[in-house]
């Protein structure tokens, strides 16, 4: 073990002001341990870092640079990629608390694993979840690898999720304690091996408490608004993004066709109008259809040949669907068992419903069929279905298709 010669920590600044009532006990003993904290510049990861520092960890803050802001249209990009506001916010928090902070470049892998996939999925008529994909393929595996290279066994993030130890020290992923903020949904795809070395320092807190801690510590990010958009589309204009990206890359004729105008039809086959490109629509979408109709209409299907199918609300219902890319963070698939054995969620904000999961393929890794105890609306291919038992995330998969 290498002992630090010069200290990066700042005893000259004096101790941090005491933040009253912080339950640091939810963290394992991290005293003297080097922990890499993924810092987005937001309040959650800032407080995560602060709590670890208070608990005696040797915190190393890292902001992942995942894409270049110069790729964005000028009005939505904050100057250049080197002056990102988020990076500066994270840097300021690190300086305030007194731990080193680095910006690490993940542009190449993020571009390949997340952005390319995002464009390809929309062009295939599916609705991708880039946050799930980033956690599974970029943030957790790559950050853990970089952390190890820096001599840190542990990585912490600002997710509202909890990691607790079960029998024999087995790591279990639980929903965050704040039901309004729970983000465990986005984490189903990470491996158990990485979960074992991950800390969620704010997972046991409410958002209110996190803001209060930030305020007590004098962190300027305390009142920073929530980010709601996909990080690489800060203006929320998915359509504009897809149009720019499609123009900048080679796409199959079939994919390009879905970025061009095509027919809007009813479920009975009646032509209702024209759409600008089926790739810009999502199953369950109600607004912006450009079709006048008496009863509310929803996108119920996107057909291969660039056709948008509209139907009524109940036509969105499905009670079975297929999953692919299935992975079980709990270690194994839930037993085939009874209907209503587990809970399933097909969107971040959705009341979980009872379901039965029937794994398919090798060791349950390849796919699964989900049978719901009650039908759900808008089962969108590409979105994640996450399987829970109580508050514990058992695993999940990517929706391939709705059945029946």
């Amino acid at each position, binding site marked *: 073990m290498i002992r630090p010669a010069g*200290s990066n920590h700042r005893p000259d600044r004096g101790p941090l002001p005491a933040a009253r009532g912080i339950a640091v006990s939810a963290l394992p003993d991290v005293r003297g341990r080097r922990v890499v904290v993924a810092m987005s510049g937001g309040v959650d990861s800032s407080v995560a870092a602060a709590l670890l520092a208070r608990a005696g960890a040797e915190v190393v803050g890292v902001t992942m640079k995942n894409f270049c802001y110069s790729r964005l249209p000028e009005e939505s990009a904050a100057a250049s990629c080197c002056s990102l506001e988020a990076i500066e916010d994270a840097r300021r928090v690190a300086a305030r608390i007194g731990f080193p902070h*680095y910006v690490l470049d993940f542009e190449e892998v993020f571009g390949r694993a997340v952005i390319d996939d995002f464009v390809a999925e929309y062009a295939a008529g599916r609705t991708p979840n880039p946050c799930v994909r980033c956690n599974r393929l970029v943030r957790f595996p790559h950050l853990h690898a970089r952390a190890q290279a820096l001599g840190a066994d542990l990585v912490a993030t600002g997710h509202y999720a909890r990691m607790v130890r079960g029998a024999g020290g087995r790591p279990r992923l639980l929903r965050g304690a704040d039901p309004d903020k729970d983000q465990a949904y986005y984490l189903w795809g990470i491996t158990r091996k990485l979960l074992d070395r991950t800390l969620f320092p704010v997972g046991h807190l409410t958002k209110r408490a996190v803001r209060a801690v930030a305020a007590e510590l004098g962190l300027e990010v305390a009142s920073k608004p929530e980010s709601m958009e996909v990080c690489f589309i800060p203006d929320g204009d998915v359509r504009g993004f897809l149009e720019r990206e499609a123009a900048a890359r080679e796409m199959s004729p079939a994919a390009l066709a879905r970025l061009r105008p095509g027919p809007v039809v009813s479920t009975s086959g009646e032509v209702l109008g024209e759409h600008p490109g089926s790739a810009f629509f999502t199953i369950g979408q109600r607004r912006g259809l450009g079709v006048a109709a008496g009863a509310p209409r929803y996108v119920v299907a996107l057909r291969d040949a660039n056709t948008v199918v509209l139907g009524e609300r109940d036509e969105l219902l499905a009670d079975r669907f297929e999953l692919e890319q299935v992975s079980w963070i709990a270690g194994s698939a839930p037993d085939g068992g009874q209907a209503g054995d587990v809970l399933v969620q097909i969107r971040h904000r959705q009341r979980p419903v009872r379901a039965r999961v029937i794994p398919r393929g090798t060791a349950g890794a390849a796919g699964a069929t989900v049978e719901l105890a009650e039908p759900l609306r808008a089962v969108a291919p590409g979105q994640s279905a996450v399987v829970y038992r109580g508050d514990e995330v058992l695993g999940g998969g990517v929706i391939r298709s709705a059945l029946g």
Partner: protein
Amino acid sequence: MTGIYLDHNATTPTAPEVVAAMLPYFGERFGNASSVHAVGREARSAVDEARRAVAELAGSAPDEVVFTSGGTESDNLALRGVMTRAAARGRDVLVVSAIEHPAVLRAAEQLAKEGVRVVLLPVDGDGVVRVTDLRDALASHTVGLVSIMTANNETGSLQPVAELAAASREAGAPFHTDAVQAAGKVPLAFAAHDIDLMSLSAHKFYGPMGVGALIVRRGLRVSPTALGGKQEKTRRAGTENLPAIVGMGVAARTALAELATEPARLAALKRQLWEGISRSIPGAHLNGALERTLPSTLNVSFEGVDGEALILGLDLEGIRVSSASACSSGSVEPSHVLTAMGRDFDLARSSVRISLGRSNDRAQIERVLQVLPQVVARIRSIALVSP
């Protein structure tokens, strides 16, 4: 916080005697050197004293020293101030080396957009420009300016400035050298080597940031890049940065005095470091020849090691080094200098620059030789993840 500081090519700590000399000029000696009254005259004489000191360091006459805001401004003033005039008289080719500092390369690119033809000279495997390549360029073009650095900032590679300047003089082309990294580490000989323009930066030799100089041979006309008052004989408008100029003067005196002993001391430390590295770490490659580089600069590539990870790993152990491919904003591009030397992408990305200075001693080098192999081994043991 400082730890073991081995990044003197990035900047050096301002020497205590420099700080002490500057302080009165933030206070009671606040004058504007252009004022004719007593307060102004005091400022003027302080600037003149600094000008003499900088001229001695550069090997020029005092009236050839033009104070600027630093190396970047000096480089821009040299290229733009000479090239735009030369191009107007038909000498429209600018010759620069492929390993110049971005201050020269970006200024050359901009001139190219404005119609100047830019010839980029290659370097050999040790990062040194061949004099024959310059002679060839001078023979086949009507060259308005040649700009080749004295020592490279990344590898420390020393260029044959005397021969390059002589070849340029022979062909009637003015010769500029960016001596920012060389000042205080190797003797400079502006006049003796027939150099026409030389850039200096105070904070690279224990002076303050924000001040530098362009040495301009008497009689060579340089068009100012910013228009305004008649300071610096109309070559650089704007009120003189009095405290900083005073600081640069004091730093120049010390740097000149230390040339007798300090480079040899640093060269010994550098040899100790390289011998230790090559003994204890397999797959370490020196970038640049040990004896043809600045006595203070060691640039090494470690096979299979991401240079950025190494820099951060050493930082966490209190050892401050840098690399051309790591920047605070996280963008990672292979160094243009190492690429020009023929290093492949992977080796270029696996390099670190260790630059020594006054504060370093044998004990620190021993400590580095203790830590470095462990950090390199740790990084090599982590299998890289791919999606």
